[in-house]
């Protein structure tokens, strides 16, 4: 992996060690199977126990809950390496760690944390995150899923969620719902919903041309009864799920760079070996410009994510800073994947190469976890003080 700016020198020995371990896992276990899994439209579930053993799930959460207790730069490097394999594989880990384990860690009771986090870290219990609804994507405050508290303290849940990664694989869903008939987003609470509950249905969303090596589902809840201890006691208002998204988006800003790095490396190698008009195509100016652009954007993105990670570890990062990194890095990755695919010529459309798979995946990454456009408006509001959403 080319490190043109010697960014390794800004990483500690443990940070490099974590990156190298996950890199080897991806090289040896993910890359050999991912092209076929993508074409077949299946998530390679057989990798889950190994990912758990390696320790990638919730890796930045504390050791006392069975997690690896890594810093946020290490966590980001894990996401980078996983997405160098495939956005679907990284998405699986993002959802498990940042969107299912994190809310239990941040808003759960001590008993909930002890019960759920250790088996989730091992990959024995899989989680998903239900926030988005069919008619409420960028605007989650409009959600209509509702939980009503019963006289005995239990809850009854009704509603539906869409675009749920890991939805049909999951053992538990972290579902966000308004409560007790209150339509304002202040009433939103989080619930741990076992997916084998009566009235819970998960249906695979078919026909995806992106993130094919990832489960994406529609969830529906019809009078799902939940014990009193299903609610995350520390959750309250839309702010809670948005805090989870900030965690996940931070990881995505690193992950997208991994996909970009994979495309760049593939394009670079191809340009040096593919001969046309009697010499390697890497000798032609047009391909050199392509490669120079890719390299420059990757280096810039790496510096953004690394600095953001240091701010996160210092406890000073803001959601708006995360928006900048997610928006930029995913955007440049989509461009790099497309340029890599073009450089590869006709071979670039084959699943044997990674470029087109990454290119198609990144369209989802561009759209989920706050679309590119929504992050633009977050940044616009941050600098002008004027809200363009309303």
């Amino acid at each position, binding site marked *: 992996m080319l490190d043109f700016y010697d960014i390794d020198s800004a990483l500690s*020995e443990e940070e490099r060690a974590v990156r190298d*371990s996950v890199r*080897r896992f991806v090289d040896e276990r993910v890359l050999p199977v991912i092209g076929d899994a993508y074409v077949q439209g299946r998530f390679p579930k057989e990798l889950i126990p190994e990912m758990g053993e390696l320790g990638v799930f919730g890796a930045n959460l504390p050791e006392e809950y069975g997690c*690896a*207790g*890594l810093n946020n730069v290490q966590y980001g490097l894990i996401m980078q390496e996983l997405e160098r394999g495939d956005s679907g594989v990284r998405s699986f880990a993002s959802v498990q760690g940042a969107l299912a384990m994190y809310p239990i860690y941040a808003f759960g009771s001590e008993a909930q944390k002890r019960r759920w986090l250790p088996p989730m870290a091992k990959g024995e219990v899989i989680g998903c995150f239900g926030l988005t609804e069919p008619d409420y994507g960028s605007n989650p405050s409009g959600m209509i899923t509702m939980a009503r508290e019963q006289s005995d303290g239990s809850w009854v849940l009704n509603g539906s969620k869409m675009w749920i990664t890991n939805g049909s694989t999951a053992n538990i869903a972290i579902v966000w719902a308004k409560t007790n008939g209150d339509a304002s987003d202040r009433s939103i609470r989080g619930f741990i919903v076992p997916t084998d509950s009566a009235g819970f249905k998960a249906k695979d969303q078919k026909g995806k041309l992106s993130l094919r090596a990832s489960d994406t589902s529609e969830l529906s809840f019809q009078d799902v009864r939940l014990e009193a201890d299903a609610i995350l006691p520390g959750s309250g208002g839309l702010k809670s799920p948005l805090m989870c998204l900030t965690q996940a988006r931070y990881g995505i800003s690193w992950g997208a760079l991994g996909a970009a790095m994979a495309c760049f490396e593939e394009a670079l190698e191809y340009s040096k070996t593919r001969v046309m008009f009697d010499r390697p195509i890497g000798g032609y100016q047009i391909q050199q410009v392509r490669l120079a652009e890719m390299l420059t954007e990757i280096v810039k993105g790496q510096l953004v994510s690394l600095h953001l990670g240091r701010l996160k570890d210092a406890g000073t990062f803001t959601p708006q800073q995360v928006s900048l990194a997610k928006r930029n890095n995913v955007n440049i990755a989509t461009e790099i994947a497309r340029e890599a695919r073009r450089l590869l010529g006709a071979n670039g459309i084959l699943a044997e190469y990674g470029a087109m798979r990454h290119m198609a995946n990144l369209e989802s990454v561009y759209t989920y976890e706050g679309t590119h456009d929504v992050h633009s408006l977050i940044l616009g509001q941050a600098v002008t003080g004027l809200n363009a959403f309303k």
Partner: protein
Amino acid sequence: MGAPAVKIAVCIKRTPDSESRFRIASSGVAIDEAGLKFDIDDFAGYAVEAALQINEKGGGGETVVVAVGPDSVQESLRKAMSMGADRAVQLKVDSVPADGLAVAKALAAELKDGGYDLILFGKHAFDTSAGVVGTATAELLGLPCVTAVSQLDVASGRGSARRELEGAAELVEFPLPAVVTIDEGVARPRYPSLKGIMAAKKKPLESKPAQLGAVRVSVQKAELPPERPAGRIIGEGASAVPELVRLLQSEAKVL
């Protein structure tokens, strides 16, 4: 059940990634280390894995990794601990001498009173391909030595090993303590788990001066292999075959 606890020392070396592009340093007697990525030598990595598996199977014991080297070798020692070794010893030198016997003397001095049942090495290190240190250490310690082992088991104070030969294999037995050098047949070295990497920071790493023996062998000159001459295209299709055969016979002399 299970074998009794075994105390194992694994002597490792830190070498550059074998797929690097090498340059000769300005001294003219070594490779230029700038920009190279270093790691536990491949065969030594197999030796670490073999030790960990023996102690996991036995359900106890201790695995100690030992290396002669400058402070940079601590990273490799910590990596072995992140894979599962219990503690590490650095025998500190400014640079590792080319004389394998001098290195073996430092290791033997460290290991002789350690109470080790088994002392493992890689069969040789990629950077020198000398294969001297393991066997010389065995000799200095007066222990039986089995080299280039592809499979290793320990039971009831005895070891058994498989050695791959050209077109055959042999199975050997030996009493413990013993020195064994490891070939790549044993299980592939595991990835350090992320928890293992964090745990390694808390494991003991002792650093002390190496008691090197006299250095009597030194490198006078290092050079890269000659560039391979460019290939030649004889022609295309079936019509080129006779000329190709003729050249393979008369010029390359391989037919």
